[in-house]
C-alpha cells in the first residue's frame, strides 16, 4: 500500500492566536501512523491574518485524512482545517 502526501491549511481561531504555540500543539496532536513532513509554514492571508500550512504523509488506506483532520480540528486555537492538495507519493 502506497503513501499519500496532503497539504493542509489550518486557520487560527482569532487573529491574536499564538501561531508558534499552535504549531507545537498541532505536532503534538498528530495521530499514530501519520507523519508531519518538514516545517509548518505560516502563510499570510489578509489583514494580518495568517494560516498554517502543514504537509502530512498518510497511508493510502481506509480513513484517508479523516483522523488527522479531526485531531487538528480539536486542537485549541485551531478554527478549521482544510486539505489544499493531495496525491500519492
Amino acid at each position: 500500500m502506497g503513501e499519500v502526501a496532503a497539504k493542509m491549511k489550518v486557520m487560527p481561531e482569532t487573529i491574536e492566536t499564538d501561531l508558534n504555540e499552535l504549531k507545537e500543539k498541532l505536532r503534538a496532536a498528530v495521530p499514530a501512523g501519520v507523519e508531519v513532513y518538514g516545517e509548518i509554514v505560516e502563510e499570510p492571508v489578509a489583514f494580518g491574518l495568517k494560516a498554517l500550512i502543514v504537509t502530512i504523509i498518510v497511508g493510502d488506506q481506509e480513513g484517508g485524512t479523516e483522523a488527522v483532520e479531526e485531531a487538528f480540528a480539536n486542537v485549541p486555537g485551531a478554527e478549521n482545517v482544510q486539505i489544499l492538495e493531495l496525491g500519492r507519493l
Partner: protein
Amino acid sequence: MAAEKPHLNLAVIGHIDHGKSTLVGRLMYEAGAVPAHVIEKYKAEAKEKGKESFAFAWVMDSLKEERERGITIDIAHKRFDTAKYYFTVVDCPGHRDFVKNMITGASQADAAILVVAAPDGVMAQTREHIFLSRTLGINQLIVAVNKMDAANYSEERYKEVVAQVSELLKMIGFKPKDIPFIPTSAFEGDNITKASENTPWYKGPVIMQALDDLKMPEKPDTLPLRIPVEDAYTISGIGTVPVGRVETGVMKKGDKVIFMPSGVEGEVKSIEMHHEEIPQAVPGDNIGWNVRGIGKSDVRRGDVCGLVSNPPTVADEFVGQIVVLQHPSAITAGYTPVFHAHTSQTACQLISLDKKLDPKSGQVKEENPTFIKAGDAAIVTIKPTKPMVMEPVKEIPQLGRFAIRDMGMTIAAGMCMSVKQK
C-alpha cells in the same frame, strides 16, 4: 522571469498497480522536472559503474530516498512543463476515503490520464475512476494503454483493451473517437516523448503530444460570483473579514454582496490577498474581504458569497446523480448522511430513490428502486435538513459536486443535476 505558460491540473487515474506512479515519474523525468542535483548524482554514479541503462529506475529511487531524508521540500505538489503548458499532477490515491478530498479540495483537475495495464485490461477501479472523473467534471481524457512491454507490444492486445475501455467511456458520455489511446510502457519509456520503435503499428500522438493537444478549460471568471466562506474573523480597526477562495466570478471593491443561506448583505470595502490590497479577486484567489454592514456572527463557514444581483442558490431539495463507493448494507429512502459540498457540511435526507443506473453502461436499470448498494449509480432526490447552497453542476460546476459521508467513510460521490429553490 519568462512569462508563465498556461497552467492545467492533471489527474492520473486508474486501477492500482497499473503503473500510475511510474507514469507520473516518467513524465517528470522526461520533462526535465527532476532536480538537477539528482541528475548530476546519477551521471556520476553511472559513469563510475559504466552503465547508463538503469537511469529511470535509479532516479525514481533517489527521489524517494530524498523524500525520506526530508530534502524535497514540496512533496504534495508535482509539476512539469510541456512545450505549451505547465502541469500540476495529482497521482490519485487508490482508497475511496480520499474521494472527499478530491471533491472538496482546492485543485479541480482539468484533464486526466487514465492508465490501463494492457495485460489486465479494465478492472474494478478503472470503472470506478472513469465514473468519478465524470462526476468530478473532468471532460478531457487521455488513455494510456500501459505495460505494453508485458504484452509483447501486441497490436492485437492493444486493440482489445481499446475496445473494452471505449465501450465503458461511451456509456458514461465520453466520445472515444475524441480520446487518444496511447500504447505505452511508462517503465521503458515507450511513446512518452517520441514514437516507439516497439510499436511501429501505432501512428497516433505520444503522451507529451496528447498533453499539448489538451484544450484550456473555459475560465470560471465569466460565471456568477461564488465564494464559499471558510471562516469569518473580527479584526480590530477593520471589522468583519470573511476568508475563502474565489470559485467562480469576479468580486470588485464596492460590489454589493450577499451571503447565503444567511441572507445578510453588505458592500465590499476592501479585498486582500497575501496581506496586500487588491482591486478585484478572480477564481483561485485565496482572499479575505471586508464587508461594510455585516457582523461576525452574521456569516459562517459553509455560507456562500455572491452578488446581490445574482445570489447563490439555496436548495429546498435537489436532484443528484451519485455513485455509491462503499456501504456495509443497503441505502434506502430516508437515509440521512452528511453531505460535504464546497465548505459546507450538512446532513441531508435521501427522500426518494428515483432511478438506478447500470454502472457498466450508465443506462437506467430500474425505476424507483427500493434500495441501492455499493457499486451502484443512481439518481436520487435529496432534502437538506437545514438550508444549504447547492448549484446545478451544468450551471456552476464548482458548486455542484458533493461527497456523502457516514460512519467515518466516504459512502458516495455525486453531482447536482437540478435544484428546487427555497
